[in-house]
């Protein structure tokens, strides 16, 4: 979504349901995907996504552009909602605990695509905090500043965390003898 258009839409959404609905239409699949990638659970994703949008609606009037997009603001709400969820439901396995589970629900076109399959498997084997950073960075294509804001750290710290996430991901690739897949980028 173009920034100018998004800004206009957000401005209208503070007063108009219809404008908010457009935001809802646009961001629902993104936020849902983001949460699903963290939880691999449809049920939890729906719960968290619901909380995210309700919070967004009730707080949209307080939203102001401070160098990051409305989307980043939504991701931060989603991130916080997920953290809340885990706090309130300690019995639920986090992404870390679910690392070794195969996910039967993932409706992914990569099923027959070796590269995507490898990436997915490898991602699940790194800590959830790293998964989140890589996901926000490469899947959701947010800027470092936005990611830093979402996960609640400084931009400089984020750079370090991003580096560590990539290293962790690489380590998994090596450990599982997936590194040769990089040869396609030679």
């Amino acid at each position, binding site marked *: 979504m173009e920034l100018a258009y998004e800004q206009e839409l957000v401005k*209208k959404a503070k*007063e*108009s*349901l*219809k*404008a*908010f*609905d457009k935001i*809802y*239409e646009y961001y*629902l*699949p*993104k*936020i*849902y*995907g*983001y949460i*699903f*990638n963290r939880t691999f659970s*449809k049920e939890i994703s*729906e719960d968290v*996504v*619901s909380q995210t*949008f*309700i919070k967004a*609606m*009730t707080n949209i009037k307080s939203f102001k552009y401070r160098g990051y997009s409305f989307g980043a603001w939504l991701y931060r709400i989603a991130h916080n909602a997920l953290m809340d969820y885990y706090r309130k439901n300690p019995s639920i396995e986090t992404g870390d605990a679910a690392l070794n589970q195969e996910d039967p629900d*993932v*409706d*992914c*076109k*990569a099923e027959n695509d070796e*590269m*995507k*399959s490898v*990436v*997915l498997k490898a*991602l699940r084997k790194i800590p959830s905090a790293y998964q989140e950073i*890589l996901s926000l*960075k*490469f*899947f*959701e294509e947010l800027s470092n500043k936005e990611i830093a804001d979402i996960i609640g750290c400084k931009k400089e710290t984020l750079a370090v965390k991003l*580096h560590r996430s*990539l*290293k962790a*991901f*690489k380590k998994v*690739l090596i450990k599982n003898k997936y590194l040769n*897949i*990089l040869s396609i*980028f030679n």
Partner: protein
Amino acid sequence: MKNNLSKIEKLLKSARSVSSEELSVDKSFKETLRGKLYREYLDQTKKDFQIWTKLKLIYLNKSFRFISFAFLSILVCIFALVNLVVKDSDKEVPSEGSKVIVTAKAILKEGRGYILKKDNNDWESTIVGQEIEAGDTVKTEEDSRLIIDFETGDTIRLNSGSEVKLESLDDSDITIEQIQGESFSRLVKLESRNYIIKIHGVECKSLGTTYIINEDIDNKLVNIYVFESRVKFEYKKLQGEVNELEKVQIKLEENVSEKSNLTEEEYKCEFALWNKSKDIEKGVNWNENEGPIITVYEPIDGISTENKNITIKGEVTKQSDKFVLKRLVLNDQEYNEMTDGKGFDKESGDFNIDISLSEGENPINIKAYDIYWNEGREVNIKVIRTIPRFFYISNISSPERGKIYVKWAINNIQAPYGVKVIWAYHTDPIYPEDESILINQNEREANITELSGGAYYVRVCIYDGNVGCSRYTENKSVIVKSMFASNIEVSVVNGYGMKSEIRLKLIDGGAPYGVKVIWSSTQPVEEFICFTFPMCFNYSTYSGPFSEGYNILTSDIRTVGSFYFKVCVLDKNGNKIEELCRTYGPVEITL
């Protein structure tokens, strides 16, 4: 190492294994969450409203009542204006597939009427901008109409003498009981709410966007006219769907329904046109365009032909693919199908139509319509039919009273026995039944004389030399003025030597066969004296002819005394024309 990390970045970017685009969000979850958000919004709105109410209470203390009222009124106006602007910007009809979160407010937008609030027993006049709640009833007067707008973007418009009750009004259901009259509903395309109108037990659920419902109390009928999309109806065991540009008539007593196509009159009825104008104000188009385009391939405009019939060939094309060709009207004759290669093919737009031609100029007017009765620019051409003429009257006139002049032409036809010129007061005079004269074969003109006044029909025919005619010209009519005056005035003046002077005024005609003057010492003049005995010496005949105006006659009385005079216009046979007789006298005749 750095190179490897760069490659890993590329890998992650290109993988986007579980990207949001590839995840399909469960549809029912999406709609449920939409509903939750809507309710959340409503709760917030209520909170806002409560804040306003509190503000009002604070300001409405005794000392500041007037000022605060004025201030609040201004605030309310500003608030309403802002709302209106925001609302209007939201009122565009969303494209199919897009979603609008339903809000359930109904506002009286325009018009006059009465409202019966659900907790009230008295009807009150409606106020524009007034909120209508579930349970409220609204009615119009005999000379007013009302518009109720829902925040969903839906609108119901009431015709005069109509009454509706808002049965339910929430995010998933707008149900209206139409107690009487006629309503028009213009709806936005929403899957997430029901829009139902109930009327006399008939339940009409909108599957589309625009329809009229009315009743015919006398005949126990409910009519549904669908202008766009579809409407589902149920009545006892009856149920069905009415599609776009269809209507259904539900006979309540017989429990039957009859479906048919909307007519142009129904589509363009006054109430529908009023709704159309209201829709246009809201920026909603009514399937209007400039109509189909007509191209005529043949004949060429202005062409001449001797044929009795001509084929009009051409093509009608749509303004856009959305519009379907419906019918072609050629000289007020409607064509909407093609059979045996003739007619109008709605699919291709081709037309091939035979029309008959009259002699002379034949104007041909072609109009084409799509299913929404959009009329394209009409096309007008003309075809001139010339008839080869061999025997015809070329000139006819009445150059003077009681006379017809006729001239004819004969080409390539033999008339060895001459021609007959026939005339009568009726059309198609024939020989020998009607009056006629025989004219020599070499003559090409004739005068018919001594005719009475009136409109005559004249023909010329080829005389067969025996008892009839073999061929006739066409009829020609001519008006002939009578030779005889329509009125006369008479006066007599005594003259020198017993020669009285008779002054005769002939009005609007003459006396072509003269007049007879009778005199007698008694009154009235005994006609038989003079008219029964030719030798009667008390009369004189003046043979004339006398023309219109004053004519002076000198009498031949040879006796002094007092006399009465009677003057009569004579016909061809020398008989008096009774209505053209006048008496005058007595006149003293002296030496």
